[in-house]
């Protein structure tokens, strides 16, 4: 019945437009099986969830109304957190500028860029809380450990994104500045920075927001800020105090985001002129 000379299959046999991806199907199946296995192992069941809901209701009930009676401790902790995040952001941004430039493979030879990239990778490896624990052990309890931990986090984030932004610039502009006989620093200042400055402001304000949030957490491991009173309140089951602290954190984070947006509006689309 088949047409002469053709390799078409016999009538009735349909030709498949898509070949089955057995490896992909096996992967999805494996993921599904692992999720079921992990859930059974960790006692994640519906009945356990219902018990949890019950507990959650009691917890919420004890959180309200928020208790601001210890407002002085909250204010002091919040101030310290803010100080930690501002200092860490300023130091981290200043340090990540040269490191980001050094890590850009289109401007630097390999023997400069690879060590810089390795440093950035190390800074990104650990969560800020783990870094904070390490610094608490290294330099002792208090705000210094928190600042150092967040500086590391800032270098990891801004350094990486800044280097990537530099790697995407137009080298024609750099070439023209270099052709005037400008020194390396002047090439960076006039050929490179104007191209990446608005993005750098974006990364920096984002990291500042992130540092404000993280600064409230490093206190839990003893690295200064609002985290310590928060942790103590949890331990004492003073959930109404916990609620007050959480509201204070929300207020501060919210204000800082508004501030970041203003900074972006002022600097984001402007040139690097020091005179502004």
């Amino acid at each position, binding site marked *: 019945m088949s047409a002469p000379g053709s390799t078409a299959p016999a009538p009735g046999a349909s030709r498949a437009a898509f070949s089955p991806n057995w490896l992909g199907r096996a992967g999805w199946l494996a993921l599904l099986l692992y999720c079921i296995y992990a859930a059974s192992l960790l006692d994640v069941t519906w009945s356990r969830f219902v018990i949890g809901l019950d507990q959650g209701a009691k917890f919420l009930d004890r959180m309200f109304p928020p208790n601001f009676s210890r407002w002085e401790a909250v204010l002091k902790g919040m101030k310290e957190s803010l100080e930690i995040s501002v200092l860490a952001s300023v130091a981290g941004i200043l340090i990540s500028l040269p490191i980001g430039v050094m890590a850009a493979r289109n401007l630097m030879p390999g023997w400069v860029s690879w060590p810089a990239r390795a440093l950035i990778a190390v800074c990104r490896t650990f969560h800020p809380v783990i870094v904070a624990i390490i610094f608490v052990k290294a330099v002792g309890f208090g705000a210094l450990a928190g600042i150092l931990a967040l500086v590391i986090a800032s270098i990891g984030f801004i350094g990486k994104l800044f280097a990537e932004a530099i790697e995407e610039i137009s080298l024609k502009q750099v070439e*023209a500045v270099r052709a005037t*006989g400008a*020194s390396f*620093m002047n090439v960076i200042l006039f050929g490179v920075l104007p191209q990446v400055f608005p993005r750098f402001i974006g990364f920096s304000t984002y990291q500042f927001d992130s540092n404000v949030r993280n600064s409230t957490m490093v206190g839990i491991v003893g690295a200064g800020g609002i985290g310590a009173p928060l942790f103590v309140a949890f331990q004492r089951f003073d959930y109404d105090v916990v609620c007050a602290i959480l509201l204070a954190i929300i207020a501060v984070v919210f204000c800082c985001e508004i501030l970041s947006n203003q900074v972006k509006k002022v600097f984001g689309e402007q040139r690097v002129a020091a005179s502004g």
Partner: protein
Amino acid sequence: MTAGTAALERAALQPAALEFRRLGKSYLPGHPVLHEIDLAIQGQGLTAIIGPSGTGKSTLIRCVNRLVEPSSGQILLDGEDLTALRGRALRLARRRIGMVFQEYNLVERLTVIENLLCGRLGYVGAVAAWLRRFPQTDIDRAFELLDAVGLSAFAKTRADSLSGGQRQRVGIARALMQQPRLLLADEPTSSLDPKTSVEIMGLMQGLCEARGIPVIVNMHDVELAKRFASRIIGMSGGRVVFDGAPAALTDEHLKQIYGGEGWLE
């Protein structure tokens, strides 16, 4: 005063002298783009280098300010071998060589006046450059050049809002800010319409002639080259195949430079 600076000062009174000696360049080993170029360009005037795409015109002039590293041979500017320079000495040599680019290569996010002052970056320290503290003489010269290229009204406009012709005017002014001994132009009109191309070539020729600066221009447009150049160098396959006055350039030469003849009529 050392003998070297005395020689430089004597040279400064005379028009620049540029000499290529057996200059060779291969981007890939065994595939030379330039074959032992020997050329001498002395005094002022506009020298046009014509030739098909990919024949090494761009490579040749980029070897002069070492945006491209020559593989062999020498390039002498006022008797100094540019191919041997490194670091600071190379930067000092680059200050004396202005360059105009096909795609203008302005720093897009900077203003016109800042782009002009880029031409002085070889003379200004990093802190002063960052704070935009240029010497007043540089700023005065920048405004004079802005007048000369007809963009006085655009001093504080950002470069990315200019038209192509305006951008190339800024590119020429930036190169002249260097007070160069020599101006290189790498296809300065290839991205422009015919009318603007003529204006840009006329502007470049006029400004450089008034300042006694020799100009070396790469270009595709043979008619434009004949109109503005006092000397034409034809290149083909990485070699110089014609070198002479525009009037001496015949269809026979053009066939040799570009190959074929159907395109001539």
